[in-house]
């Protein structure tokens, strides 16, 4: 069964159209990343699914319920980590987590959860004394404390230092092994690539590409980038295409059929006893694909 089904959802704020007909489906147990730049519409979509915002058109089902009317039954099964905020400064970390746990029919063990997000040393500290990253980790704990089936993470690691980010990634991976469905938003390509089973790229309120980290934007069909130097003094005019006629210290080209292009290139070099210095063959990164997609959409 699908955990989330979104069909032709439209969201407008006055004259601004934040979502123009978004459709997607997320399977149970899937980690799904909504990847897009600031203002793309990620928070608008996620908050419609959480029941925080109304939609102007389209239908939505979250665990089979409409979030606008799902009420307590739905909220007992979802965990929400908002893009920002939501903490009472005068409570301690453990008080905040323990209190939130009492709202759910089942809860994760509290101290274990606090350790899981790396706040065991801050357990009895007032929330107002925490750093930004520590608060974020507490918010993460609050989203998980009710042991939800479906977890929404709106930019969960924005503002984290690299080690805190790795720790949060480990946490998401651990949740995946428990069979939880996770919808996370991010504007970090590496985060989507590291965590998600599937990624949708969103720009200007539209899904512009959808796929696994490996296939996103037909990445598997795009060629690789080949780069090398020739230190020997030979004519480069008769190199095979697409390298022929390239000039500069480094010769660099994107090839369509990697195997055939390399065969032709190395054949040319061996025949002339030329060394292809520093030869690298790099498949397109998700970042290349992502930036291309965003650029196409803007054009």
């Amino acid at each position: 069964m699908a955990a989330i089904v979104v069909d032709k959802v439209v969201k407008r704020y006055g004259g601004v159209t934040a979502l123009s007909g978004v459709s997607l489906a997320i399977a149970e147990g899937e980690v799904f990343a909504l990847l897009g730049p600031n203002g793309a519409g990620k928070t608008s979509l996620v908050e419609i699914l959480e029941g925080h915002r109304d939609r102007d058109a389209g239908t939505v089902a979250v665990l089979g319920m409409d979030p606008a009317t799902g009420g307590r039954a739905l909220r007992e099964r979802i965990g929400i980590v908002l893009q920002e905020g939501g903490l009472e400064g005068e409570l301690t970390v453990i008080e905040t987590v323990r209190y939130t746990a009492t709202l759910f029919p089942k809860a994760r063990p509290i101290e274990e959860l606090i350790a899981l997000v790396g706040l065991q040393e801050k357990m009895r500290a007032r929330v107002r004394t925490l750093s930004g990253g520590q608060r974020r980790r507490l918010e993460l704990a609050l989203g998980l404390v009710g042991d939800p089936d479906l977890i929404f993470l709106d930019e969960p690691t924005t503002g984290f230092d690299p080690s805190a980010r790795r720790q949060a990634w480990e946490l998401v991976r651990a949740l995946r092994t428990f069979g939880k469905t996770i919808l996370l938003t991010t504007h970090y390509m590496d985060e989507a690539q590291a965590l998600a089973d599937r990624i949708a790229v969103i720009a200007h309120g539209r899904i512009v590409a959808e796929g696994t980290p490996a296939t996103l934007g037909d990445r598997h069909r795009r060629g690789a980038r080949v780069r090398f130097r020739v230190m020997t003094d030979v004519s480069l005019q008769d190199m095979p295409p697409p390298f022929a006629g390239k000039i500069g210290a480094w010769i660099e080209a994107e090839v369509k059929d990697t195997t055939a292009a390399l065969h032709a290139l190395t054949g040319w070099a061996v025949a002339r006893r030329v060394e292809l210095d520093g030869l690298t063959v790099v498949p397109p990164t998700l970042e290349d694909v992502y930036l291309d997609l965003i650029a196409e959409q803007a054009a």
Partner: protein
Amino acid sequence: MKQPSLARLLLGQIGLENRIFRRSPTAAFFSLIFPLLMLLVFATLFGNDRIGPLGVTAAQFYAPALAVYGAVSTSYWNLSIHMVNSRELGVLKRMRGTPLPTWMFLGGRLASSAWIALLAVLIMMVVGVWLYDVTIYVHTLPAAALTFVVGVACFAALGCLVAALSPNSNATPPIASATLLPLGFISEVFIPPSASAPAWLGTVADFFPLKHFARAFSGAFSPTLHGSGFAWSDAGGTYAILPHLAVMAAWGIGGGLLAVRLFRWEPRPETVG
């Protein structure tokens, strides 16, 4: 796997709000300490003589009047400020995404506020009796209790309305103070009724609910009024709370309905950035 009962959720929310209150020195000061300081100042100033046309001692007038002030500070001033702070911090929004029903979240917060208001009243009256020989009349206590309930409900509704109207955290304390303090001076809270005051001032005060709260509550501690208080007419020195309760109920219901319509769970988008 069992769903927590509504009673447990409500008690949990009240307990949490009480804990937050205990850790908020400003709120605790204005609800519990400041009215007591005023009582000490006024009783010292007037030497606990008989004051004004009421013919009662300073403390007999000020203890109930300042008890009302403490209750209103809690249910109107603190509540509106706390509500807007929670909204700006995103607490309201986050709580709305948990299984806690929203009416239960608000109900817990209002009940905690009423509980603290009750403490403010009890502390004031106990100190009044203990230090200044304030007299309590048993036969008017039911009327005083009902007045307290209606008054706190009215001002809590208006506190929620201020929260709904206030644009942000910085604006709320000035709005709450500017609407409460001037009324305090003309509503028989800080200053006893005086024969020399211009009539229009009394008419203005009659329009707002604070004077009705003060009159109805203080009447229970008046040695000159008679009756239990459950009367519509104060003719012939009868203690009558019902007309005052009617005015407070009108303000409370009107303000409450408007607050429900205008209530926001999130800060305005501009302030999010």
